[in-house]
């Protein structure tokens, strides 16, 4: 078997294994989407008086991505503590596959949550052209893959007791600075400038353009480029950590 075929098989094996466990507790998938859903239901109607659902929902999708896949590392903290990860690291399985199989499971969970959120947004009156919806969906999945990979890397690098508090705290400023709840163009200069540092702002602005049916232009291009670079960088960093001794 070629190295690529072997790695694909291993990725699939790990994905299936994790997916079966995820399916067993469906409620976890729904709970993971509850926060953005609450924002949609309890904040959306207020936002809609000054803005549009097509502006808000992309923001909630970025929040969902951050919450759902940003905390993916929780799972590996346990696997690492039980010695499960080390047991798998002694097999010839590709290190990238050990990571990718898990990331894929997180992305599929995120896909289900994204569909739920989009459906709810639609029910409230959001209207998006199919091509924009599809492109936006793919962008969110790429973002999720990068975030999940980085989350695993962080979980395996950080002190395991710090991971949860640090990550849950970090998600709040990252969400706010992306402009998820109100566009950053409304922010004062310093805050606006600060938000450009965050990759999520670029992703979100591209997402809003796509939802508005604008598929070309600098904002979309930049957002897509940032998302792709982010996803690749996340997977590279994640794989390095899986390679490393003691991980």
């Amino acid at each position, binding site marked *: 078997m070629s190295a690529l075929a*072997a790695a694909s098989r*291993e990725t699939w*094996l*790990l994905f299936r*294994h994790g997916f*079966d*466990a995820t399916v067993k507790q469906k409620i976890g998938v729904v709970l993971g989407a509850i926060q953005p859903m609450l924002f949609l239901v309890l904040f959306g109607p207020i936002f809609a008086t000054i803005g549009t659902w097509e502006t808000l929902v992309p923001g909630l999708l970025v929040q969902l991505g951050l919450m759902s896949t940003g905390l993916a590392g929780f799972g590996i903290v*346990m*696997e690492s503590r*039980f*010695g*499960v990860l*080390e*047991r*798998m*690291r*002694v*097999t*010839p*399985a590709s290190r990238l596959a050990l990571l990718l199989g898990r990331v894929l499971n997180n992305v599929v969970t995120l896909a289900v949550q994204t569909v739920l959120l989009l459906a709810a947004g639609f029910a409230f009156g959001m209207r998006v052209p199919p091509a924009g919806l599809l492109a936006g969906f793919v962008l969110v999945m790429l973002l999720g893959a990068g975030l999940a990979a980085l989350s695993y890397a962080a979980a395996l690098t950080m002190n395991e007791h710090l991971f949860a508090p640090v990550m849950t705290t970090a998600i709040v400023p990252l969400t706010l600075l992306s402009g998820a709840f109100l566009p950053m163009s409304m922010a004062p200069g310093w805050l606006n400038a600060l938000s450009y540092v965050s990759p999520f702002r670029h992703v979100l602005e591209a997402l809003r353009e796509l939802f508005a049916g604008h598929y070309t232009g600098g904002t979309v291009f930049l957002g897509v480029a940032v998302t792709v670079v982010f996803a690749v960088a996340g997977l590279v960093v994640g794989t390095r950590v899986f390679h490393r*001794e*003691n991980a």
Partner: protein
Amino acid sequence: MIETRGLSKTFKGGAEAVRGVDMTVERGEIVGFLGPNGAGKTTTMRMLTTLLRPTAGTATVAGHDLLADPRGVRRHIGYVSQGGGVNLAAPLDGELVLQAMLHGLSRAEARERVTEALERLELGDLRHLPGGALSGGQRRRFDIAFGLLHRPALLFLDEPTTGLDPQSRAHLWDHIRALRDRHGMTVFLTTHYLDEADALCDRLLIIDHGRIVAQGRPAELKAGGRTLDDVFLDITGRSLREGAAA
């Protein structure tokens, strides 16, 4: 099967856990790796199983260079770590099948091997339980199943029988001997039970303060009518070794 030259590990804090280990293990041998607490047994094993990078020295394991071709090494080994690798939260039969398949077995083969290993280790009835629902000794037997179900050419066992009752220990010895006799498996194991080392191993290596201090067949080491306990205590001294490598 294993050949090391000057294998060493100095941890970041400065602890010299392993200091220039030279050893040779032949195919089909059952070799016991003995030494007091903190002598460097686990550190050596973690290097030989590709989990820890040596700070100096070279090694060939199962025909592959440890540093240049770690994946080649992993294709031929099994490892039961001292702390174990049982998932406390997931049913173990699924974990076992996954483990065997990550070693390259097909699903059908994996299922067959899992059933066989669980039967041999008398764990069949417990296979649907998560690790958290098992006793310490049952969990340890699952650890062993994880290490040997793909029938590796070279099996590393780090204190496999700690926590096992006498019947289970005797069973495991039989099982290990059978694997060697039937499949030519090479076994490298640590233990603190000198009776076990005596009964099971073809050859013993004794490590202390990160260096091999004695080796030979149990009978050779015991020459002059001494017990293995006497030999061990003479070689390694009688004081406690906790943290002695530092």
